[in-house]
């Protein structure tokens, strides 16, 4: 895991979703979608994400092998970014399962590199806390931006996220 030199254990895990670019763009994309919803639906989306993340991290803890979680995260980033760019508000009934899948993929794509069992467990817990806190904060920030130009900026951000994820996926799938 260790993308941040010096940060290990819980702190390393906490920072992990913010320091892994693929995770960060998926989180921001999902937050842009969640931010368009009223607070109760936003909370439901974050809860679904937390559930999926717990499942994904649980899978890692139980020794699940390699999965296509990285690609799933990028596909989620494309979908969320495109929805945000289009200014479309998807139903919370659709957004919550998407958040569940996104959370599970983020968890499965976060294997700790530590050889110490205690350290690895702390990193997984940190990753869970960091991912949920980041999504909640980003979604709250996106929801608070209500002015016209801020809405345009959020849609532009969505299009950038989708573009980045499409480029990376294209590179992976073609080469």
């Amino acid at each position, binding site marked *: 895991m260790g993308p941040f030199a010096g940060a290990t254990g819980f702190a390393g895990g906490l920072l992990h979703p913010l320091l892994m670019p693929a995770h960060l763009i998926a989180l921001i994309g999902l937050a842009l979608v969640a931010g368009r919803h009223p607070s109760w639906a936003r909370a439901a989306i974050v809860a679904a994400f937390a559930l999926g993340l717990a499942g994904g991290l649980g899978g890692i803890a139980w020794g699940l092998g390699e999965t296509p979680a990285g690609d799933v995260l990028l596909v989620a980033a494309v979908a969320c970014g495109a929805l945000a760019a289009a200014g479309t508000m998807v139903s919370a009934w659709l957004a919550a399962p998407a958040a569940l899948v996104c959370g599970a993929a983020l968890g499965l794509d976060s294997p700790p590199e530590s050889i110490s069992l205690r350290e690895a467990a702390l990193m997984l817990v940190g990753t869970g806390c960091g991912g949920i806190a980041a999504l909640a904060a980003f979604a709250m920030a996106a929801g608070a931006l209500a002015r016209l130009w801020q809405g345009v900026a959020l849609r*532009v951000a969505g299009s950038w996220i989708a*573009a980045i994820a499409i480029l990376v996926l294209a*590179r992976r799938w*073609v*080469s």
Partner: protein
Amino acid sequence: LSRHAPHPVPDCRDGDGIVPAIPTALVLLLLGGGVPAPVVLAIVAVSNFAVFHGYAHGTELPPGSDAIAFSAGFVVATGLLHLYGIGLGYAGMDLAGRWPEGPAAVRLIGVAIAIAD
């Protein structure tokens, strides 16, 4: 997207650039003539350009390098250039009435880019 793989789109840098260039040049010539381009044409020009621009720069990523960092940098840099162009366009509208030559300057830029295209 390797140069040796079958190309899903014509290579924009080997003489086949006419495909992405036509709608862009059309919009710019309209701009140069002082005619606002229809939104549909502008959308076609922008999205068409985006595909070829992404493809052209996507092929530049050296094998083994960090694809996501490259893509993020490329997309952000492109977006900032867009913002620069939008700023120029707004300046050309002379909203504050402080730059009367603005519209003519922007039209000139449009014609120059269309010719270069």
